[in-house]
């Protein structure tokens, strides 16, 4: 930086100087880290009761109430959305931007600086520096040396002087900008996040099977019109073998506009549906217990064609092509049998093991009855060869959807990408310069090498020494 001029030291400059300070950066990074720690200990956006208990545990019953209300007033219970935390991030961004702008002129000078040839004594001043004696005179060896320099990735300039023949060059100067790319990317990510919060929407929608909605809701109960209608055509949970461990949650959704179906698609936990800027995610599910749902059976009479039938609990139906009358007596979303008494019971409201109790009659006489269980194909076969498959209890479940519209997410991802490019440049590339001076006698060439790098000196040194060592052993 230029020398500070006493007369010119006005407010703007003072503020500028404050924001270029690396001490401020360190202080901000530490403050953000430490306050974030507080945010992981205190549970965020939760019922007050939980944190009250936590405070009692940490501070004791006496101190807890006053500390709790003080923390609450400071926004510690929803810290990451509080004004002061946002303020910290804003300061951090200002720090990043101003600090980077302040340093850019100096960096660009370093990048664009032309190299110049050196006098012989200067070679010895470099920390990467070595001399090699090669067989053969300069004319013989100059080609090998140029090849070596090329293999090291340098385009060199030739220079003749009283000292001898000299080659010098530099590469990857541009990598000096890489850290600024990293810094810019952080600003981009935060910008994208702000856009998402300000202009985006993040809410949820619970849809029972068969129902539709053209709005979604935020956590604090606001309604957001979507501009289209989402219908839940069906919802299903699959389980691993005969466990209660869910394997897949799947909703079949369709999108309607002006009464017409535009799109129909199933979604799973890692595969959302995207439409008109909104993304709809499978988030949760549950039972709609007060609904009169439909039992859906796939009926295959022995030797006959399969037919799908639907009925409510208590309804009767006919097996096609016969006089057998069936009746769906009971339904259980999660059937189990008591180990000792063998009594059936329902162990969950969720559809973990759906089963229907069917009763069959012919000409008023009881034929057979029993449980048909969706997850156990063995139970589908009736004694007389008819097959009853329980397909669904449709309308009994709702699907919990997360609905999001985030116009900032692409900026966030762009920021992530630029950060990676920047990190690559910052860590794996370095600004490297090399000078080689050749002096010769009739059948010997002395090669003096000097080099610098702004980073990873040891590895650069190794690469150079190995390359030139090769020249000494050849021939």
């Amino acid at each position: 930086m230029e020398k500070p001029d006493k007369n010119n030291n006005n407010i703007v400059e003072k503020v500028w100087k404050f924001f270029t300070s690396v001490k401020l950066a360190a202080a901000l990074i530490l403050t953000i880290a430490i306050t974030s720690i507080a945010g992981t200990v205190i549970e965020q956006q939760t019922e007050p009761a939980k944190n009250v208990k936590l405070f009692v545990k940490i501070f004791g019953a006496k101190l807890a109430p006053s500390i709790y209300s003080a923390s609450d007033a400071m926004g510690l219970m929803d810290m990451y959305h509080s004004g002061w935390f946002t303020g910290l991030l804003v300061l951090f961004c200002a720090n990043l931007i101003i600090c980077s702008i302040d340093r850019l002129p100096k960096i660009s000078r370093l990048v664009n600086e032309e190299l110049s040839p050196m006098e012989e004594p200067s070679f010895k001043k470099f920390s990467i520096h070595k001399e090699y004696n090669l067989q053969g005179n300069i004319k013989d060896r100059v080609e090998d040396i140029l090849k070596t320099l090329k293999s090291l990735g340098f385009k060199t300039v030739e220079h003749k002087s009283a000292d001898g023949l000299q080659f010098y060059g530099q590469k990857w100067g541009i990598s000096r900008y890489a850290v600024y790319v990293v810094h810019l990317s952080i600003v981009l990510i935060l910008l994208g996040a702000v856009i998402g919060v300000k202009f985006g929407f993040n809410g949820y929608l619970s849809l029972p099977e068969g129902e539709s909605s053209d709005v979604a809701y935020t956590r604090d109960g606001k309604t957001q019109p979507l501009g289209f209608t989402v219908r839940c055509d069906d919802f299903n949970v699959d389980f691993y073998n005969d466990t209660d461990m869910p394997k897949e949650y799947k909703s079949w959704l369709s999108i309607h506009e002006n009464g017409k179906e535009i799109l129909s698609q199933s979604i799973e936990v890692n595969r959302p549906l995207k439409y008109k800027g909104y993304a709809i995610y499978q988030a949760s599910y549950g039972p709609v217990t007060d609904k009169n749902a439909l039992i859906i059976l796939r009926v295959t009479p022995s030797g006959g064609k399969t037919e799908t039938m639907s009925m409510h609990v208590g309804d009767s139906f006919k097996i096609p092509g016969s006089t057998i009358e069936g009746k769906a007596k009971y339904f259980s979303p999660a059937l189990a049998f008591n180990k000792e008494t063998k009594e059936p019971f329902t162990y969950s409201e969720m559809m973990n093991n759906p089963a229907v109790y069917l009763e069959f009659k012919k000409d008023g006489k009881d034929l057979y009855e029993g449980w048909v269980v969706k997850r156990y194909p063995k139970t589908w076969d009736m004694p007389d060869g008819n097959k009853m498959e329980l397909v669904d209890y449709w309308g009994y479940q709702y699907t919990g959807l997360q609905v999001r519209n985030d116009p900032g997410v692409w900026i966030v991802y762009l920021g992530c990408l630029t950060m990676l490019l920047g990190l690559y440049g910052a860590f794996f590339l370095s600004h490297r310069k090399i000078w080689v001076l050749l002096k010769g006698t009739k059948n010997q060439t002395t090669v003096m090498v000097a080099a610098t790098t702004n980073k990873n000196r040891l590895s650069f040194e190794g690469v150079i020494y190995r390359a030139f060592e090769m020249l000494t052993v050849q021939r």
Partner: protein
Amino acid sequence: MGSSQFFGAAEIGYFVAMMVYIGYFVFRSASAGKAATVVTSVSFASQTAAILLRWFESYQMGIGRAPLTNLYESLEFFIWCLILGYLIIEFKYKTRSFGAFITPIAGLTLGFIDLTAMKTTIEPLVPALQSNWLLAHVTMAFISYSAFGLSFAAAMMYLILKTDDRKGSAYWFWTITAGIFVSVLVAMLADYLNYHILHTPVADAKDALLGSTFRNKSSLVRLLSYLAAAAFTGIVWRYGGVLKRTFTYFGVSAELLDQLNYNLIALGFPIFTLGGLIFGAVWADQAWGVYWSWDPKETWSLITWLSYAFYLHARFIKGWRGTKVAVVAVVAFVTVVFTYLGVNIFLSGLHSYGEMP
């Protein structure tokens, strides 16, 4: 033989290797050094076989997934990367003296696996975990954790080598860190003896870890354990210079350690950024529609990231070198450990306490 036998063999092998490396370091016996390398390599091969077998077995069970999706598997993978990294360093720099400092990290991890009664069976995945992003996320996060683990060891060695002023704060810092580290390791060994050799029953699997010492039911044992740890730390403080002289004997240069420390962080930081933070965010975005939700795990990853960013800036802008940045590297690794284990143990503990009726 199934994967668990191979894992078991590797586990015992790494413990033996740790002892032999320490023996080599203390007694400077060249043959012990060679033996340590052989034991480590064989254990590593066994662990590699175990990981591959486990993968294969999961397909046989009809689950079919890479063995990287739960706490147990990820810790095994961490050890695998750590030992691989160590073997590369040993080969590249032709020195075995590092072994005495790196194998204990593996030992500590193994002890943790063994004593926390975590599930080691192959379990099917719940829907949220069925994602290739998760796989990329976990793999890369653990590669970076092992790079950070190695940098931690290099930083500790640097501190041992460079500080001998018993009043200096850096000397205090490393002696206390080493004291705690070794005390925990010894306490885990005590647990191992207690439960596996003496077959003392444990009331609750959750109390097993350090249950023989620092978390014992009897307050007398607890007090004695803390006193012993403090006494041990005192001994390290008093005789830390011996370690330094041993290092000098092995001809390890401080510059190499400082450079190694930086190089490992320069390797780990981008991988952590990509795998730990970015892939994690993409996965969360895919699965739940939020790329960042400030949950404790995410936040602690951010804290870890900020710690290493602090390290880099301290080094590049303030020109901190050697002792100061080594201290930062050690502290940053503590945040790594907390991000991975502490969040599960302490924060979930606090929060689940909050949930109790």
